[in-house]
């Protein structure tokens, strides 16, 4: 309750400074609500792919599909109403590679990007370390130059140089700038409706984006999860030896509601994520802006904006980019110039964390999860050991590298994309599944090695 009151007082104070902080507070309160639901449903997308392979439990994969279906349905209404804030991602090999690195990392950190935030809200200091590692690894990846530049092929360097970008961005230096300008910008990204020239039509939005890109794949994945992970146990429990089609459908339903907390959180998160887009879209129309940066300028805050006077402001649930900004902002304060990169200097800016609207969404998630964990008497400070701290830092670093290569994490590059008609998110999920599968194999090998080493002590 104390945490909740703190957010209320903070919100009132911010509005008293300038009523236009309402735009930022929308992120705070949606973040808080996400945090409450994530903790309530133990809703971690790392678990969705990891627990399938590690312990053969489809609970979270099912929850994730429920959330995707609900978000897609609400996003349809928001898009039809003209308030969508969504931009599709560029489609390319970088998604598979980045997602695989990200998927490998999440097995070792014990949570995805959002999962680490809500677990930090439960008092888990390992998860806090993961957030720090994600923040700095991303900031370093997007600003690094020197030997890193030898990682990119000459064709990308030539293509980046041909883009005629402002000199202060030095796009010929810094491998991520070259990767962005010389590779990503040459790729295409579109929703399915756009690809079929139906972006402006209700048929395109409903049939192509919602049904074909979200609902149909969700249905196929749910059936696959049932067949491979749930059916056998379900038939044993119900005593059916020759199940009818009705029995199979009842089985899929039983799988969907087998963890009520997860299913309810999935429904709630799906609806909230869609509403978030609507509220931010409506506020942009109200203030007549495209980006929070314009509002910051109008309020007299001009530090840390990109050269386009923008800041990172997706208008929907997103995690990793704002964390990269935290890392980049600290590096900037330490005298390491990070604004000569495309990522910060041209696109996202490096605002003071106190003015970073999506950053407050991440903080909102931590606080929302704390409210829920305290209310359920599940909050406990958990200090890292050397072993868990090592996994948190190495895994978090891999998550940061993977998220930047794939242009987002399981939220921004998967959850927000497939629900808005952008099929690139399924490519991300494919990569993340491969990474998590290899990660589980590596983790199992580590456990066996570790147990053999300490066999007499632990007896496992």
């Amino acid at each position, binding site marked *: 309750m104390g945490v909740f009151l703190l957010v209320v007082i903070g919100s009132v104070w911010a509005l008293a400074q300038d009523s236009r902080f309402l735009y930022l507070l929308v992120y705070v309160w949606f973040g808080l609500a996400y945090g409450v639901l994530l*903790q309530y449903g*133990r809703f*971690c997308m*790392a*678990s969705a792919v*990891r*627990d399938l392979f*590690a*312990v*053969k*439990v*489809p*609970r*979270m994969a099912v929850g994730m599909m429920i959330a995707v279906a609900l978000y897609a349905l609400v996003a349809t209404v928001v898009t039809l109403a003209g308030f969508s804030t969504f931009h599709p991602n560029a489609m390319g090999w970088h998604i598979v590679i980045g997602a695989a690195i990200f998927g490998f990392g999440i*097995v070792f950190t*014990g*949570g995805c990007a959002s*999962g680490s935030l809500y*677990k930090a809200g*439960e*008092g*888990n200091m*390992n*998860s806090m370390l993961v957030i720090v590692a994600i923040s700095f690894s991303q900031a370093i990846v997007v600003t690094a130059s020197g030997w890193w530049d030898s990682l990119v092929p000459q064709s990308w360097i030539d293509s980046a140089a041909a883009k005629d970008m402002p000199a202060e961005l030095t796009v010929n230096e810094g491998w991520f700038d070259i990767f962005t300008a010389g590779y990503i910008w040459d790729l295409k990204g579109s929703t399915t409706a756009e690809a079929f020239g139906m972006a402006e039509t209700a048929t395109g939005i409903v049939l192509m984006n919602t049904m074909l890109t979200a609902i149909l794949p969700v249905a196929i994945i749910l059936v696959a999860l049932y067949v491979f*992970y*749930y059916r056998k*146990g379900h038939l*044993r*429990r119900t005593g059916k030896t020759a199940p009818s089609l009705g029995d199979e459908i009842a089985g899929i339903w039983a799988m969907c509601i*087998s*963890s009520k*907390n*997860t299913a309810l959180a999935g429904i709630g998160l799906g609806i909230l994520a869609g509403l978030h887009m609507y509220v931010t879209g409506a506020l942009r129309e109200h203030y007549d802006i495209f980006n929070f940066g314009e509002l910051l300028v109008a309020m007299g805050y001009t530090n840390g904006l990109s050269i386009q006077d923008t800041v990172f402001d997706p208008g929907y649930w997103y995690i990793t980019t704002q964390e990269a900004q935290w890392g980049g902002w600290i590096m900037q304060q330490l005298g390491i110039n990070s604004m000569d990169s495309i990522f910060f200097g041209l696109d996202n800016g490096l605002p003071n964390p106190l003015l970073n609207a999506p950053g407050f969404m991440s903080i909102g998630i931590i606080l929302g999860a704390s409210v829920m*964990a305290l209310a*359920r*008497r*599940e*909050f*406990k400070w*958990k*200090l890292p*050991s050397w072993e*868990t701290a090592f996994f948190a830092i190495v895994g978090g670093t891999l998550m940061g590298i993977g998220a930047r290569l794939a242009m987002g994490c399981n939220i921004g590059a998967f959850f927000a994309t497939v629900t808005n008609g952008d099929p690139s998110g399924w490519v991300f999920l494919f990569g993340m599944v491969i990474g998590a599968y290899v990660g*589980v194999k590596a*983790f*199992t090998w580590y*456990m066996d090695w570790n*147990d053999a080493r300490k066999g007499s*002590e*632990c*007896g*496992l």
Partner: protein
Amino acid sequence: MAMSFNKTADGEWELNVCGYACPHPQMYTKKALQKLESGDVLSLVFDNPSSGESIMAMCEAEGNDLIDRQEGSGSFTWKIRKA
């Protein structure tokens, strides 16, 4: 902080995975249950709430009985009887 797995009495075992986040608790639980004989009881102590949901699903899938759940102050002690 370290994981511990001990036999506490005939047919009774205790696995303590406090301090570990996912996926350690559920993976160690799976491993521990593989060591038990049918009818043995495992007392599982953990403090990562998210693992509980997966462990519950694991028990349901394998047919193991979750016979007791004590929870409080951020820690969980569950008793699982192996099918």
